[in-house]
């Protein structure tokens, strides 16, 4: 029974991929775009109502922000690729992956807030300068982070395959200790020379997590920028900042969903395998997913430069 349920996740994701690749989701995408546009118009209306001081306008504004976040995340986006891909490639626990998804959505809002307020309020720059900074600096760095995560997964998958083939075993081992012990040193360093496998995993996960969150967060949503700039000009900046975070919460509904699906599909795929086969399969999966993420991120990077 448990295996059947796990397996259903894999089938669901595979079916979704096939529908998407064959263009069968075209009508869905069209409908989504109409909904996104409608949300955009409602957002404008909500800001007008807010400016007019209509009762209940603030709650209505936040509700529209939330819906805007959900709708914008429901379409194609880098966040789902990163969270979903990472969730498939690494055996991260579902809770941690969902936490990462939530953290990245909120961090994305924080980046937008930081960008707008640093530029407008502190530096006294114009809207065009904010857009320019987002496009020319922040977004490309985010794309580079995602590409880095992809390459990191490829590298780890490659090393895993080599290890499984039993070549270069000893050297690998040595390198690992060498690399990772360098990263254990921090403010909380307890002089754990020669880390255990657990510690290596933890450091790896922390580093991965950072790359996942930063890669997603450093592509501030244009909608959030619009809202932040507008509310700042209207003198209702705080409502706008809260709105940006509410938008992030809306986005996280979808990315957390992607996280759950990714884990479900991954465990479904692995449930049919013996533990030895899993150990052999995971590096290959890592390599493949890493390649997909790297290719997409390089594409985004080229465009954003």
């Amino acid at each position, binding site marked *: 029974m448990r295996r059947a349920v796990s397996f259903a996740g894999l089938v669901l994701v595979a079916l979704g991929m096939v529908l998407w690749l064959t263009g069968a989701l075209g009508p869905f995408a069209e409908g989504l*775009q109409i909904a996104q546009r409608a949300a955009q118009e409602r957002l404008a209306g909500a800001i007008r109502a807010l400016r007019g001081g209509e009762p209940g306008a603030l709650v209505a504004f936040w509700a529209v922000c939330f819906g805007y976040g959900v709708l914008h995340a429901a379409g194609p986006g880098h966040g789902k690729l990163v969270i979903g891909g990472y969730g498939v490639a690494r055996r991260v626990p579902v809770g941690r992956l969902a936490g990462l998804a939530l953290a990245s959505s909120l961090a994305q809002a924080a980046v937008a807030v930081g960008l707008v307020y640093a530029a407008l309020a502190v530096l006294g720059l114009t809207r065009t300068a904010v857009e320019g900074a987002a496009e020319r600096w922040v977004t490309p760095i985010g794309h580079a982070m995602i590409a880095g995560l992809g390459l990191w997964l490829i590298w780890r998958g490659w090393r895993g395959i080599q290890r499984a083939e039993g070549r270069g075993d000893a050297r690998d081992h040595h390198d690992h200790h060498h690399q990772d012990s360098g990263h254990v040193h921090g403010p909380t360093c307890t002089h754990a020379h020669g880390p255990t496998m657990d510690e290596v995993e933890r450091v790896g996960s922390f580093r991965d997590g950072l790359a996942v969150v930063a890669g997603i967060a450093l592509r501030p949503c244009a909608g959030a920028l619009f809202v932040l700039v507008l509310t700042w000009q209207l003198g209702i900046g705080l409502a706008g900042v809260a709105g940006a975070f509410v938008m992030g919460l809306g986005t996280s509904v979808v990315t957390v969903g992607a996280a759950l699906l990714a884990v479900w599909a991954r465990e479904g795929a692995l449930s049919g395998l013996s533990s030895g086969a899993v150990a052999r399969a995971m590096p290959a999966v890592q390599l493949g997913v890493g390649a997909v993420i790297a290719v997409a991120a390089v594409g985004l990077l080229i465009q954003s430069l």
Partner: protein
Amino acid sequence: MWRMAFLSLCLVAGPALAHPHVFIDTRIEVILNDRNEATGLRVSWTYDDLYSLYIVGDMGLDTDWDGKLTTEEEAKLSGFDMEWIEGFEGDTYPLMAEKPLVLSAPRDWTAAYGEGKITSTHVRDFAAPVPVGDVPLVVQVYDPGYYTAYSIPFDPVVTGGTGCLAQVYVPDMDSASEALQAALAEYTPDVDLEAEFPAVGANFAEEVRVTCAAP
């Protein structure tokens, strides 16, 4: 060859991850001379409510929020979207028999604000007059990066010429995806996919087709 294949894969994957943040309703006016040659295009862009509000608010216009601009304010607004950075093609792509045509930089721009929306217009000239007959002159509107979603809900306008007709064509999403897949399947090293790619992306774009009866 592998570098090319990789690059083209990236270029396909990039836009697939994008979704639009600005929505523009376009009106295309085709200007023809009396020999039924197209000489230029007048392009009109109506921005969505949020982006319009964003621009008007940022420029400090319509401070009383009555949704109307004074003549001076409109003059100030005019040209806000006409400072094109290098490489920006105005998201307007005319084709004749599948060959891209060259357009001039924009001129004679205007901007107006009504019902909470900004509408701007500008004129662009063809590098050389384009004779139009049975084979349609195609004008596609799209943003290759898909940051802006263009649609053509307004009837196109034909100015000048005799017996000319302009119609809007909406893409068939299914055949557009098929075309994309066919283009990828047919990929061979001697095809410059980078140059070919915009045409694939354009399969998803709405377009205006102009034909003229023989004079």
